[in-house]
């Protein structure tokens, strides 16, 4: 028998704490596949955020540390500067990065720190019970916006991939999603590119992943994928916003 797909070696046997259909699980799995394929497991330091992925250090057979709320890029800066030969991967959700730790990610980008950032955007605070996040869409009902987010009082959703593309210290910025098998394959490609740029020492590489949160959105998982396609992608368009060519960067 030929193996077509096997659980990645970099994963432990632990069952995730994510809800059924959560996009975190898919992205974590892609990261584990890439750690296997690129042979990075022994030299990786994963920096986990506060959020649904807070227990993710238990799922990976790699060194990991959990940062204070929003402070993952600041912690990763210290790790990468003291251990420049390690592969440092920051993983953050939208509540953690855009709301709590906006200044940390912005200043890491300003400094052009040489690590990779995976940003999971599910337009809601998942772990704390589905409150409105800075990335919540207009009209989206959450537990703190029961009549839907209003433009007049709550402003606009934050498009991180575009913001990061503006920063000179960022070498790569792309927005992808995981709502179909084809797009999961594209997400893996984007992550691989972001990971490989770290070895070329080009600067901060950033991948935003639009991810379903069936529990937070009060939808069935398969319906959540449709909702993501119809509502989220028009506000958060997919694509590469910045990609430094060979020889560019620091």
């Amino acid at each position, binding site marked *: *028998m*030929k*193996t*077509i*797909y*096997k*659980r*990645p070696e970099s*994963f432990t046997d632990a*069952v*995730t704490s*994510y*809800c*059924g*259909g*959560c*996009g*975190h*699980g*898919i992205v974590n*799995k892609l990261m*584990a596949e890439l750690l296997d394929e690129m042979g990075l497991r022994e030299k990786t330091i994963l920096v986990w955020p506060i959020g649904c992925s807070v227990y993710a250090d238990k799922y990976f057979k790699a060194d990991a540390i959990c940062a204070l709320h929003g402070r993952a890029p600041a912690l990763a800066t210290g790790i990468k500067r003291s251990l420049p030969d390690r592969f440092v991967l920051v993983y953050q959700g939208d509540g953690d990065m855009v709301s709590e730790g906006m200044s940390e990610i912005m200043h890491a980008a300003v400094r052009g720190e040489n690590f990779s950032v995976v940003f999971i955007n599910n337009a809601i605070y998942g772990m704390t019970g589905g409150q409105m996040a800075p990335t919540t869409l207009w009209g989206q009902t959450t537990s703190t916006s029961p009549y839907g987010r209003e433009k007049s009082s709550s402003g606009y959703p934050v498009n991180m991939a575009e913001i990061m593309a503006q920063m000179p210290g960022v070498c790569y910025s792309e927005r992808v999603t995981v709502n*179909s*098998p084809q797009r*999961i*394959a594209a997400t893996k490609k984007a992550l691989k590119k972001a990971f490989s740029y770290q070895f070329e020492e080009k600067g901060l590489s950033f991948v935003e992943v639009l991810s379903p949160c*069936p529990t937070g959105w009060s939808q*069935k*998982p*398969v319906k959540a*994928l449709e909702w993501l396609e119809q509502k989220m992608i028009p506000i958060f368009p997919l694509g590469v916003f910045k990609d430094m060519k060979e020889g560019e960067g620091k």
Partner: protein
Amino acid sequence: MNRTEIEFERCKECGYCVEFCPKEVLAFGDKVNKRGYYPPAPVKQEACIACGICARVCPEGAIEVYKEV
């Protein structure tokens, strides 16, 4: 015959594998696991083309696919 293995206790019944299987090999089962979910099981294993889509979309990494050579 190609083989699709679903780890019964790891499944959280999101249904992505059932939704995306191009050959409708998988269907929800009637057995409940420790967490209270009803994991899918192959009902038409002979139709499986071992594309691996079910395994790639599974958020839990609970599916393994083997192709007969």
